[in-house]
């Protein structure tokens, strides 16, 4: 039986690859972490990806926002996963979002100037976070920032989509999707159907 399963998995693997090779045009320009050296984000040159919608300056700001939303901390974050490229690509194909995002970036810089005396990229990380918190948390919402909140909701959603659909995002969650099994996986906690006595949480 085991031999048969192995054979079946091998067939599946080859079929899967043939499908991809025949029909997927490829994303040679899309940067993913596994193609980068592990030593740090500063080695990644933005010039590797030519934005399709945002200007270079806007794109740098988008990239900064994505890494504030999903940072590289103990594990790789949005920067290593190339999320800014995904955001740019999606917005380039989404006319309904373009105006909101472009004006949102302008609003963010103006807002930073007004409240902290410099454009968003010139602020310290602490200042940047302090500026975003009222947009992100209901308890910290401030009147007059509705447009900013709407913009942040949009960029955050795109960032989340881009990160958790990337290979790095899959690794982050240990996402078990699209693996093959010989039997349908069964709950391993026999004797504890209510799951009241599980080993302590890992995260």
């Amino acid at each position, binding site marked *: 039986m085991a031999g048969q399963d192995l054979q079946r998995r091998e067939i599946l693997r080859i079929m899967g690859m043939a499908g991809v090779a025949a029909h997927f045009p490829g994303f040679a320009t899309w940067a993913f972490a596994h193609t980068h050296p592990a030593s740090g984000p500063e080695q990644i040159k933005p010039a590797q990806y030519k934005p399709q919608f945002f200007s270079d300056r806007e794109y740098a700001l988008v990239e900064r926002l994505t890494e*504030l939303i999903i940072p590289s901390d103990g594990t790789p974050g949005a920067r290593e996963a190339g999320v800014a490229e995904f955001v740019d690509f999606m917005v380039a194909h*989404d006319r309904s979002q373009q105006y909101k995002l472009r004006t949102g970036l302008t609003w963010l810089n103006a807002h930073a100037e007004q409240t902290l005396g410099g454009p968003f990229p010139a602020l310290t990380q602490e200042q940047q976070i302090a500026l975003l918190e009222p947009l992100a948390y209901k308890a910290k919402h401030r009147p007059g920032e509705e447009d900013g909140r709407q913009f942040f909701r949009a960029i955050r959603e795109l960032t989340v989509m881009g990160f958790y659909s990337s290979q790095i995002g899959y690794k982050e969650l240990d996402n078990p999707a*699209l693996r093959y099994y010989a039997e349908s996986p069964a*709950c391993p906690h026999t004797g504890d159907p209510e*799951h009241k006595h599980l080993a302590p949480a*890992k995260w």
Partner: protein
Amino acid sequence: MPKQIYDVIVIGTGAGGGMASKTLTEAGLKVCALNAGRRLVPTKDFRNHRMPWDMKFRGFGDPDKQAQSYGFMDSEWVEGVWEHEIPFTMAPGTTWMWPRCFAVGGKTNFWGRSSARFGEIDFRAATLDGYDVDWPLTYEEIAPYYSRVERMIGVASTVQNRPSNPDGEYLPPFNLRCIDHILHSGAQKIGVPYLPDRIAQLTKDHEGSPACHYCGACTTGCDTGSFFSTPWRFLPKAEATRNLDLRTDALAKNVLVDENGVANGVAYIDRKTRQEVEVHGRAVVVAASCIETARIMLNSKSRHWPHGIANSSGQLGRNLCDHLYGESANGYLPQLLGQPSFPDNVGDNQVAWMPRWQNLQNPREEKFIRGYSVYPGGGCTEYPWYAVQTEGFGSSYKREVKRRYPTPVNFTIQAPSLRSDTNYVDLDPEAKDPYGIPLARIHFQWDENVLKMWEHSKQVCAELIRAAGGVFENSADEPAIPGWSLHETGTCRMGNDPKHFVTNRFGQTHDVPNLYACDASVFLNCTDKTTTISILAFTLRTCDQVIEKFRRGDHQRV
């Protein structure tokens, strides 16, 4: 070239048409099957093993084209497979979502696979609660056909001894996951059933098809044929008999009749040449799926049938029913917070079900009549949908998304609408498709009874989450819009009285003895169960009749 005449013309190759083509050709009859779309190539068209980062839009699809998508199944994984060229219209006040797959095999390529038998409680519902009429057959009559179908296609489940759900012949069930055990304990506390679903998905090698490999991507097609679909399991058998002529891109337009008003063929549009073609046969099986079947028959107008073929009752297209779908409740299970991930999505989350538990002893126990079932889901899915609802950003947010990953749960209701005179399909008097065929126009509203079920399910499912030690978060404000379930029934209902029913108890039209309907159009309503396995069982029974009529000479062999 002499004009070729077939024994039977079958319109459609989905559950009904595929079963008809297989059964009739295996009995030696010469069949011409018409299919409105192309053949799929599993290695090309089913991208189910492709990771999101191997796809242009990561599986989310092109945003600028979202408005043209039917959503859900009509995704980047199966691009160009769902039908977009042939539109439909809606009467004022109706909203209707109608995803259709015209490729060979139809919706069996992507279906949900849940396969419960209808039971006596469904067939005799009118006797029990006084609404509408009973089905013109008993469970005992159809039961052997369900058994034959289950043996053919392979259904994984357990014997459950429930009054509304007759048991069948099953392969070993799917194993229950952590979320199932936790929800089961909650269900027990509030007294509702929580059981392995009945799934037409192979847990063992079966009839030459390999067992499932549990990749979880069933809704985008299966490239090993490990769940039932006609292109993998029936059509190769039909073609092996050399009695099948399968014509693709053949969009059926109308049933042709002879000088006596008896069916003698089908006119179709060859979508490649855009030419109209006629094909002739001694009997015609319409299996184009409920609404499409009504459209073809209503468009089959002649001197004999001025209002559509076999429509002397005026009931053709009437009595449209549908399953109300909607997310009755969602939440999460704190027991699993921070636990290692688990492959919960192995059968596309189709592992367990909560079969109808309402109105079983007393048909009027609840504020509504009849009943609904619920499909639970959740756990580690391909994409963490809850993440967009989770507040915040930064490391704390990233950690929370990871902590929550194994915990989400949700419940989807499947509730039948009641038959109504105001829910029906007719031909749009003006709008036509690109080939000049009048469009189907849909008239549909949810009824009060089904909306009461929806409200009831929201309460029960929230209660279940809490009883399981979980945190209830939301219920959808509104149910999904009609049509979303893909379980429409009616339009050619079966009954003994030719004045009130289009087809008889065998799916043969009362008016035209060599015209049959083999899809959910013959069902009296949609019950709380899914339709596919019943389409297969009823079609098998109809085909036994067709074969017998050819044998006896009621239909002349070619």
